């Protein structure tokens, strides 16, 4: 079979390197072509998987001494995330940072980041997982630092410190697993089979270090404080990719961690409690924000907490609901940040207290934003709805009535977001003058994201039928 995953990585690597020596226009062309090619390949993989129900596995020899091979695999969960990452990256290249002075660097960074994301989601062993994790972290740092807004220095430094701390914890966990499983393996499936023989005390240590690493990235309370600044200060492309894709690094890792270590069943209640606290924290913190981007940042944190809640249910519905929410939220939050980036350009501000009547100046942006809000609060027909239903079936069957608690935070959040939308976007009595107009590229990018949100909302069987019950 054609090695789709290797081909994706190859195309992105070639694109990243090729776009560096050229000017703005050519590098943009290269980026569009490369991300489109990757998107097409992801769609083909999805089609093949639907047709034959098979999963993908590709391998090359790498470091023989450790028994590490360059192996990539993709089942349903991985395929969903790869698809999501390629859609978001494509939309980011089309619609984000179009007129920025640093467009060349930003295109190369998007491709590098997408390379890291696809590599991470499809890596079959933790060695590659860690390598791609750190490539993503560094690409994210430069998206904030060299392309970001006024407070980018503080934001980027906080982001870097938290991220590298997470990397260090992740590395510790990976090394411990490798040396304390009897078979000495980095392979994700191999660890799952062998983890039972790790002593309990050590499993606790491994679980703790990796849990910390992943909640930094998701982000979940109390290790989230890098997030609002980082999302708000990054370039539009940066915000889309950081919140849509980078946060899924942590979520996907968490999914692997819970399915891998037997001790997860003993700590799942604590993880669920933390998720509930974090969800309410995010909802209340969002209500304090007057800046649109920061508000979106906190919604993203809330969804991250819901994902954690679903994972901690440790059953079929919770697990696959979480995977589906990773896909759905990635698309929705990318749409929100793309719209917020346009608002920044249109009015020079993202302060909701100052903005009025956006629908008058920029109808497509206003309605897009509204759709993004509806989607992140789980409106039926959007992908988030499917995910939320699955997750809460899962949490209720695992934790009883308490399982419904995090859902209330979504309601709180939704109430505030609709209020904000009504005030700044839909009121037409007074309106702020725009200094820019939303062009074709932005509208195309909106359309791509909206279409995929509905596609996966109306036809969840595209991904869910791949799961064997």
């Amino acid at each position, binding site marked *: 079979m054609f090695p789709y995953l290797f081909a994706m990585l190859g195309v992105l690597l070639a694109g990243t390197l090729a776009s560096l020596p050229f000017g703005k226009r050519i590098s943009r062309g290269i980026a569009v072509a490369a991300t489109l090619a990757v998107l097409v390949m992801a769609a083909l993989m999805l089609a093949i998987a639907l047709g034959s129900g098979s999963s993908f596995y590709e391998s090359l020899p*790498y*470091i*023989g*001494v450790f028994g590490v091979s360059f192996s990539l695999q993709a089942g349903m969960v991985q395929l969903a995330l790869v698809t999501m990452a390629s859609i978001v990256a494509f939309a980011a290249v089309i619609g984000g940072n179009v007129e920025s002075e640093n467009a060349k660097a930003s295109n190369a960074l998007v491709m590098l980041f997408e390379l890291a994301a696809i590599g991470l989601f499809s890596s079959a062993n933790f060695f590659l997982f*860690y*390598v791609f994790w*750190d*490539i993503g*972290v*560094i690409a994210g*740092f*430069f998206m904030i*630092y*060299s392309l970001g807004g006024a407070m980018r*220095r503080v934001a*980027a*430094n906080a982001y*870097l*410190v938290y991220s*590298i*701390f997470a*990397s*260090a*914890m992740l*590395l*510790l966990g990976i*090394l*411990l697993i*490798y*040396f304390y499983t009897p078979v000495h393996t980095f392979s994700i499936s191999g660890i799952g089979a062998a983890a039972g023989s790790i002593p309990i005390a050590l499993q606790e240590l491994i679980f703790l270090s990796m849990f910390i690493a992943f909640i930094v990235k998701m982000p979940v309370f109390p290790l989230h404080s890098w997030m609002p600044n980082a999302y708000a200060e990054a370039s539009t492309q940066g915000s889309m990719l950081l919140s849509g894709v980078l946060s899924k690094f942590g979520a996907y890792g968490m999914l692997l961690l819970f399915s891998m270590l037997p001790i997860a069943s003993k700590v799942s209640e604590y993880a669920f409690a933390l998720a509930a606290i974090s969800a309410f924290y995010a909802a209340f913190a969002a209500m304090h924000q007057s800046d649109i981007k920061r508000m979106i940042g906190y919604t993203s944190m809330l969804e991250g907490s819901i994902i954690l809640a679903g994972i901690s249910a440790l059953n079929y519905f919770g697990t696959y609901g979480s995977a589906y929410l990773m896909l759905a939220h990635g698309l929705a939050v990318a749409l929100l940040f793309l719209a917020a980036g346009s608002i920044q350009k249109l009015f020079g501000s993202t302060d909701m207290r100052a903005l009025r009547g956006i629908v008058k100046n920029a109808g497509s942006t206003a309605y897009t934003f509204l759709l993004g809000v509806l989607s992140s609060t789980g409106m039926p027909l959007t992908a988030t709805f499917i995910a939320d239903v699955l997750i809460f079936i899962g949490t209720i069957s695992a934790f009883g009535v308490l399982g419904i608690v995090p859902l209330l935070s979504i309601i709180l959040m939704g109430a505030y977001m609709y209020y904000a939308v009504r005030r700044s976007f839909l009121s037409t009595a007074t309106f702020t003058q725009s200094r820019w107009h939303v062009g074709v590229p932005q509208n195309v990018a909106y359309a791509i994201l909206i279409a995929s949100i509905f596609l996966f909302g109306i036809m969840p069987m595209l991904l869910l039928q791949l799961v064997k019950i």
Partner: protein
Amino acid sequence: MELITPVWAAYGIVALAALLVASGIAAQFHRRKGVAFWLSTAILLVLAALAAYEFAVSADFVLFGLLHVYAFSMFFAVLFALGLELVNILSYGHSSHFIEISTLLGFAAVGILVVPMAYSLLTIIIAIELTTVPSALMIAIGGKRDLEPAVKLLLLSSIAIAVLAFAVSLVFPYDMQLGLTAIAANPSIGGSYIVFLSMVLFIAALAVEAALFPFNLWVPDVYEGAPGNVTALVAGINKKVAMVALIEILFTVFIVSRPAFMAGIAVLSVLTMFFGNLAAMAQTNVKRMFAYSSISQAGYIMVGVAAATQYGLESSAFQIAAHMFMIIGAFAIVLWLEERNIKSVEDYKGLAMRNGFAGIALTIIMLSMAGIPPLMGFMGKFLLFSSAISAGLLTLAFIGILNSFLSIYYYGRLIAAIYDRRYERKLILDRSVKAVVIAVLVVIVVFGIYPAPLMAITITVAHSLLGL
């Protein structure tokens, strides 16, 4: 009949080392920079090729009863010859006293190459002395300020040499032998307090040269005061030579007292990592920052020695190679900027706009030092920490990982400064710095992405030292 035999190749290595000194002395008379440079380049490259040949045929014999030609020594001979060549290129482009530097580099090169080959304790002492004295003179000749750094290095290394000599004299009476393996074969070497004292003194003396805390006080002043090419030599090669000597002595002579030195080296390693990283955070001068960062890197390398297993040795050898290239590359750029009076983190702001290549190169080198994949420094740290875990030193591995995280603070700060938006006049990179930096980048990227060949080599190295 073969054209070249391992023994003749070994004679060739010795002859070339002698030729290097001779050509250095001759340079004092003809005084042509170009001739001196190309001659020493040719000699170093041929020497590296011969050593690589010895490694490839897995030679194992002792020359003149003094020089042990085996995989361990030949690996480091190749490595240090390449490092010396990089320093040579750097000095050629940037030293106003290249002829003098060339002479001294010839002498230092002999010491550097002999240390890993040494077959007796006395050879090690002499070779280390031969390494440090010319380096101190190079600092004195090329230093911009006063003689302080040169005197500091000279004084401290002579104290170290004296301690080394005392340590040798403690083990010598046991069987009137100086050969490394001969001493190790003596059954009375284990358990004796005198021998134990000797080991402690060896560690202390070599810790001065290798800049392990608390014997590292000379490092920042010397690195800052010395011209950049000499700093590259001292940080990139001299320190590694002392580490190689330490590994040689501990793993041949004192292998029976392994639990004791494991604990001692682990403590030194922890202190060194913390001191280096915490002090580096406080620096505003980039050269000093790299000086402290190289102290912490020495601590990482010692993690592998503390593990005291074959795996630990492999990882230390890997990281010695990695850090040699990284620090020479870093000091090449620092040297070039220093000549333009760009010294502090503040001055580095906007470097990426003033010279894109230098900005990206320094970023990659620093990311590698911080241990970010897929770069060589990451593989080195990965191997080191995993060797500590596999030897059961969980705490040490944890502290190492924690320190790796701490280091991102100051590397990140400098990287951030490099990518600051500030429009100033462009800077042009000259040929010698460019050549060195490109060579370094190729090494750290290639062995970062595909480390398997170098790992296979370090396995042979560790095998040969442990006599497996």
